């Protein structure tokens, strides 16, 4: 426990010192929330909608932190630690290299939560956004999306033979998901063709889930995304466990 705590504090400092995850995960999402709030104002999502366009976008913007930590933070750190034989050094100590893996997941989880708090804070403070009655449902949805995206990140860390491959895979997953899943550009304003293409991205489904929870939409609308998210968790985690290498 002492090792976990000390390592956690140290890795948290490292991730903050490194700036990348903070910039993409925390700063970017909060700034985007401000921009969307200014652009969209109080416009309703569509004619006669009970919620505004901004409220509709909240779930999407809230997912940026998950994507930045899960698709960049976790896999890049783990690939780097393996590549530079830092995990190997743990093998000749009383603690397992698995502790470093756990700490990485925990640290990135915290950064993701900070990002969520930032987006919510900005939205609530400047644009009067409220999560509505289903706060618990939203947090549960957030956790499911986080687990599924982190499991994709673990998969990348597991199958990448080297640092270059990890960086390439992360970019291939991260940027299209960021741009096309609705996290930055609202899904609703995309042409039908793009929406169809976007639907195959796991984060699109995750955002649908977050949106459903944030807007208090009926549960049957989110059943499909839930199943898809859970499937991602099971499949990616299984493959990760099977193929993960310490060096």
């Amino acid at each position, binding site marked *: 426990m002492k090792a976990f*705590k000390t390592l956690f504090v140290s890795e948290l400092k490292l991730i903050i010192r490194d700036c990348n995850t903070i910039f993409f995960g925390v700063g970017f999402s909060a700034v985007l929330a401000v921009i969307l709030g200014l652009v969209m104002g109080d416009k309703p999502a569509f004619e006669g909608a009970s919620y505004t366009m901004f409220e509709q976008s909240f779930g999407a913007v809230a997912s940026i932190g998950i994507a930045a930590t899960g698709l960049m933070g976790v896999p890049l750190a783990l690939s780097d630690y393996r590549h530079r034989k830092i995990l190997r050094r743990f093998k000749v100590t009383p603690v397992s290299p698995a502790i470093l893996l756990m700490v990485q997941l925990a640290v990135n989880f915290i950064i993701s939560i900070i990002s969520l708090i930032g987006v919510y804070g900005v939205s609530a403070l400047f644009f009067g956004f409220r999560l509505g009655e289903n706060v618990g449902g939203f947090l549960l949805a957030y956790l499911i999306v986080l687990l599924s995206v982190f499991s994709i990140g673990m998969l990348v860390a597991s199958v990448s033979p080297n640092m270059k491959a990890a960086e390439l895979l992360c970019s291939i997953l991260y940027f299209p998901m960021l741009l096309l899943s609705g996290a930055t550009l609202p899904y609703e304003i995309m042409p039908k063709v793009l929406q169809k293409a976007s639907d195959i991205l796991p984060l699109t489904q995750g955002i649908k889930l977050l949106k459903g929870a944030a807007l208090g939409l009926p549960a049957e609308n989110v059943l499909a995304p839930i199943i898809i998210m859970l499937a991602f968790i099971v499949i990616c985690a299984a493959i990760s466990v099977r193929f993960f290498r310490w060096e």
Partner: protein
Amino acid sequence: MESILTVNGLRKSYGNFTAVDNLSFEVKKGEIFGLLGHNGAGKSTSIECILGVKVPDGGDIKILGMNSVKDRKKLFEKVGVQFQESNYQTKIKVDEICKVTSSFYKNPVDWRKLIVTFGLSGKEKSLVYDLSGGERQRLSVLLALIPKPELVFLDELTTGLDAKARRDIWKYLKMLKDNGLTIVLTSHYMDEVEALCDRIHILKKGKTVAEGSVSDVISGASCNNLEDAYLYYSGEEIENESI
């Protein structure tokens, strides 16, 4: 004398390449044991197999009476390791890596004292990657000593150090030896080996070509000094002459 490390018939190959071929030796408590050989002779592979980081193809290894894979948690409370290339997290500071390393052990040495001993005072808040090569090398030896080990493995312990820093580390290691520490080291510097090692073992292409005390090895090769004897046993020239 109590046996701290026994290696019996260690073998390791990578595909068709035999890295270590039937290596056997024993290290007794309080000894400094040197594993010598050219780059690629199998020193690091042997150490990695002994430590359980690599899986040997065959052989029997006992450290402090334990198995390095099965008894890992218990064993590495008492065994310190410095690998040849020590890598650290990119932006980690000296005091942070010391604190983290200390947190792994039940009874670590006070790392602040080691910092003074190894001449790294004032560097606590420096990034490890901003240290000079010599400072980083001293840090890697320091980290291996944090567990207050009974046995320590030092792979190329003074590579990249200047004469003064090397002498300082020798002095410190001798002091630890006098306090009962057992040391297994590899080195390319024969003056260092002569100054430190009680017994040595020379490897060539994974095979043992000489073993014994420094004076045994020198007289066995009919040479005047260890460097000549080392080259005699591990060098290529001799092989060409015999053809």
